[in-house]
């Protein structure tokens, strides 16, 4: 009799139970698809083996133990199965990748467009990220940087900070030990380095010995200062890596070597690592000395770095400081508008200036827009591709491909494309970063503690952004098209895109144009503003002026008679040069004019101005200044040689200051002062308006001139007026300096125009980058319009053929296609315009002479966008008008 057939189920009890439990546990490792079979096979063998063992007379316990031991091997088998599954997955991805590359190669035009679009986006994003990272995100690598801060003088009314603290303010804050448990000081001191290849002026600083250990810097070679060295004023120095390599030969035996600093022999005791550029890019550190120094300000001010006491919350420290300052200001006012106010600049965060930060963030926003446009473009192109491939996808579905399989394949394709684009993008970034660094204003490079370039962080970012891009532009189309499984291959339905998809594509183009409009308006405003900045009338005939600034080493020229003698000889030799018409000598020539901050101006007999907000440039002028530079005296007189020592303190003011203090009156003979305890100045003349600090003098309108002479000048700043091109006499000037004293370095010899151009480096930097980004965005948006219109035309070939066959004229067809494009572009531009009117307010601080909503700029940009869109749509439109009706109707 045939035994009854019933499905067997392993008994979870009895001698086989322990072994079966092991198998159940191991089964967790086995991939889902084969798990059932795997369990069945192992269970069957165990049960069968148990029967066999019991049949051979083994005891139940013995058989159970033997089986349990044997079952342990199932773990290894299960692990192997898992491993095989993973490898199969990898093979599948490789297969998808090959397929993706083949697919891309079949449509080279579209693929190149995709890759270029994304490479531009990724390249731009990566290079700007590199800047944002270095300037804003990466904190100084100091030890415990989160609790370190610089103490800055805060001019509340002017909203400005300055690096220096006056001694009484510093001493007061240093005593606040409940706030700061360590305070270290430094001040800048430029020194004259000789003994190396060429005499050189080096910006250095004197630091208290504890500063370096507080910041946690370790020397690259040699050692740091000891406390004794500081107090004894030992002639020792630490040099930065850059100075060591560039000027001191970069040899390891530099430690212990002597160099000549300001004519004194100083021993180099160590080399500081390249990243350490504190304070503010200095390359030479000397031990702190309390000796009085030769400073322009007269006051021995210095800067301080503090370490917050453990009980102080870093985020609340500023509030505490403000509270104390307020009480001090009320009870014991100090002279000067700053009072006791200080600002803590935390070293754990970017130390860039606020306006620099704003500029860099603007760039980051702009590049994000470019990236969005690139992604929208790529999604659009991919969607067009996928629509063309619907037949292929439908066939694969019909052959049994699962949706997840199609989804992974489509995503693999988009990620493969973005990976290629990412690699190209890194090349783009590498190339563009070199240009960016060359353009970068010093205020940005000084606050970065790492080199701006393609380091590991930036490359990681590039990889991530490529991956995200691949997902961002690939996911939408992939989900859409893997959903079309119900569509059968070859049906007519698979040939025309459904309306909803067309809408998505159109929406993407509209968005692209809106974003692009935003950027182009921004760039247009900056270009317009920069053009105004370069056209600003400096108030002088700057074309024929040359600035010459030799540095007189205090060691060789310790007293005024010696300095004076040298400068006199120098000026004499300069006069002897052909083509030199006039020469003026002062301590600091425009645009590096001394600027007074937080001054409370007060005209005699009037209440003090509600001031403190202005920056007041004070220019020291000798008797030749006005004639040489070409400043006209509008009223009164120029300086005479007697003015320098005159008790009346004669000054010459500019028309803005005259207007502010004595509106409508004659200021000549009137007196004013710059603080309640300052002496009165007597106005002897009014000079024509000169932009002494550079073309953008919005914050430094009120200027005046103070007489000076060779008896008051440390290192001279000489302005030469020439008959022709001032650049032509530069070699002769250098030769004169060498003849007079080969150890004198020429700090600067440059045409006046060049020096003024340098004052607008930041606007130029931002403007250039914004313009490039706007250009890229416009190009991408144009590609978007072209792609969509070309696709629409190719999809509507049949319809167009019918129209033409029914008598439509080709011009009409062309107009229709162009009209469609302009509807899209018009919508995008309108949206972009609305957004840019709102967002361009963010640019307000960077604009000069125009308003954020400048109608001229916006008008010009709109016209330009229209032209670009027209050009992009023209080719598809022409193709549409040339459709042959016969061929169109014959086609599938």
């Amino acid at each position, binding site marked *: 009799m045939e035994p009854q057939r019933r499905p067997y189920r392993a008994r979870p009890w009895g001698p086989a139970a322990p072994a079966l439990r092991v198998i159940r546990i191991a089964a967790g490792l086995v991939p889902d698809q084969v798990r059932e079979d795997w369990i069945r096979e192992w269970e*069957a063998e165990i049960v*069968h083996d148990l029967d066999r063992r019991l049949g051979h007379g083994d005891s139940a316990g013995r058989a159970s133990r033997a089986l349990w031991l*044997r079952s342990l091997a199932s773990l290894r088998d299960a692990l192997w199965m898992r491993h095989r599954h993973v490898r199969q997955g990898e093979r599948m991805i490789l297969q998808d990748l090959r397929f993706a590359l083949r697919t891309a190669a079949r449509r080279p035009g579209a693929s190149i467009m995709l890759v270029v679009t994304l490479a531009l986006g990724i390249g731009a994003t990566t290079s700007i990220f590199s800047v944002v990272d270095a300037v804003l995100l990466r904190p100084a690598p100091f030890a415990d940087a989160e609790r370190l801060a610089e103490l800055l003088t805060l001019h509340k009314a002017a909203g400005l900070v300055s690096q220096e603290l006056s001694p009484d303010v510093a001493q007061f804050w240093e005593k606040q030990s409940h706030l700061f448990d360590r305070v270290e000081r430094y001040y800048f001191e430029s020194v004259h380095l000789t003994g190396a290849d060429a005499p050189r002026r080096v910006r250095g600083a004197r630091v208290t010995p504890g500063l370096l250990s507080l910041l946690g810097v370790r020397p690259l070679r040699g050692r740091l200062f000891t406390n004794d060295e500081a107090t004894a004023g030992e002639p020792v120095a630490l040099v930065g890596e850059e100075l060591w390599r560039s000027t001191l030969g970069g040899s390891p035996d530099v430690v212990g070597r002597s160099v000549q600093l300001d004519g004194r022999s100083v021993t180099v005791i160590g080399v500081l690592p390249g990243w350490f550029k504190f304070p503010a890019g200095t390359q030479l550190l000397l031990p702190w000395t309390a000796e009085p120094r030769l400073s322009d300000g007269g006051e021995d001010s210095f800067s301080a770095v503090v370490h917050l006491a453990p009980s102080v919350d870093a985020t609340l420290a500023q509030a505490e400081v403000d509270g104390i300052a307020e009480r001090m200001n009320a009870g014991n006012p100090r002279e000067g508008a700053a009072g006791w106010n200080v600002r803590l600049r935390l070293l754990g965060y970017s130390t860039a200036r606020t306006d620099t930060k704003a500029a860099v963030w603007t760039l980051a926003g702009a590049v994000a827009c470019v990236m969005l446009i690139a992604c929208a473009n790529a999604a659009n192109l991919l969607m067009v591709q996928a629509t063309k491939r619907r037949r292929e996808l439908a066939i694969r579905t019909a052959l049994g491909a699962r949706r997840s399989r199609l989804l992974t394949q489509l995503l693999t394709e988009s990620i493969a494309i973005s990976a290629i684009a990412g690699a190209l993008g890194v090349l783009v970034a590498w190339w563009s970063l070199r240009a960016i660094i060359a353009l970068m204003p010093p205020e940005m490079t000084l606050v970065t503690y790492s080199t701006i370039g393609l380091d590991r962080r930036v490359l990681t970012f590039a990889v991530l952004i490529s991956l995200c891009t691949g997902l961002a532009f690939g996911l939408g189309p992939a989900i859409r098209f893997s959903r079309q499984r119900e569509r059968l291959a070859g049906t007519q339905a698979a040939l025309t895109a459904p309306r909803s998809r067309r809408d998505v594509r159109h929406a993407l183009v509209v968005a692209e144009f809106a974003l692009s409009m935003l950027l182009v308006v921004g760039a247009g405003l900056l270009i317009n503003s920069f053009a105004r900045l370069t056209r600003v009338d400096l108030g002088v005939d700057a074309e024929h002026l040359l600035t010459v600034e030799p540095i007189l080493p205090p060691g060789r020229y310790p007293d005024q008679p010696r300095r004076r003698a040298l400068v006199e000889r120098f000026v004499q030799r300069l006069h002897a040069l052909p083509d030199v018409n006039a020469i003026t000598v002062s301590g600091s020539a425009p645009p590096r004019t001394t600027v007074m901050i937080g001054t409370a101006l007060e005209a005699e007999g009037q209440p003090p101005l509600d001031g403190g907000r202005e920056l007041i440039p004070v220019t020291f002028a000798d008797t030749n200044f006005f004639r040489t530079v070409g400043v006209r005296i509008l009223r009164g007189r120029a300086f005479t040689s007697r003015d320098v020592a005159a008790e009346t303190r004669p000054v010459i003011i500019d028309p803005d200051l005259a207007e502010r203090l004595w509106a409508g009156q004659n200021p000549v003979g009137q007196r004013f002062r710059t603080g309640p305890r300052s002496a009165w100045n007597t106005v002897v003349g009014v000079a024509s308006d000169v932009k002494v600090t550079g073309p953008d003098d919005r914050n430094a309108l009120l200027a005046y001139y103070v007489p000076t002479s060779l008896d008051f000048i440390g290192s001279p700043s000489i302005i030469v007026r020439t008959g022709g091109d001032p650049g032509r006499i530069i070699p002769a000037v250098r030769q004169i300096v060498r003849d007079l004293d080969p150890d004198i370095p020429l700090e600067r010899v440059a045409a006046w125009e060049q020096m003024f151009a340098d004052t607008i480096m930041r606007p130029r930097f931002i403007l250039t980058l914004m313009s490039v980004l706007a250009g890229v965005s416009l190009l991408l948006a144009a590609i978007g319009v072209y792609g969509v219109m070309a696709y629409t035309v190719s999809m509507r070939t049949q319809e167009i053929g019918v129209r033409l066959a029914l008598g439509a004229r080709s011009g009409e067809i062309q107009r229709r296609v162009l009209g469609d494009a302009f509807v899209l572009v018009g919508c995008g531009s309108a949206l972009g315009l609305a957004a840019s009117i709102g967002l361009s307010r963010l640019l307000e601080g960077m604009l000069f002479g125009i308003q954020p909503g400048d109608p001229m700029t916006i008008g010009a940009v709109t016209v330009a966008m229209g032209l670009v869109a027209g050009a992009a749509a023209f080719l598809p439109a022409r193709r549409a008008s040339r459709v042959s009706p016969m061929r169109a109707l014959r086609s599938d």
Partner: protein
Amino acid sequence: MVRRDGSLGEYPISTSIYQLNRTARLTYPTAIVLVAIANGYRYGFEIIDATGLGAGTVYPILRRLDDGGLLRSSWEAAVKAVDRPPRRYYRLNAGGALAVREAVNRYPGLAGFVPTPRSADPTPA
């Protein structure tokens, strides 16, 4: 060209050896397992007992040979497996037979290592 069963009949000899090399290198344990199957051992534990290799070694070899198309595996008919679950049994196909020849050529001492073929257990239907 051997044409004994449908699956591998059209493959030239070199292909089956290539398959073997690709999916399961002809190591000594693999060779023993092949010979054991050729000698008539069909079920996992049988092969384990006959070769003296561990289950953790034999099963991955069987799976590799299966992946490589040298084996065919199928389930024991329920008729044979009354009161216990049906086992999976393994049989060589044409490629496998060639691989056995290759194995014996490469490891001449192998034939004597695996016990002689058993005749007791009939081939399942």
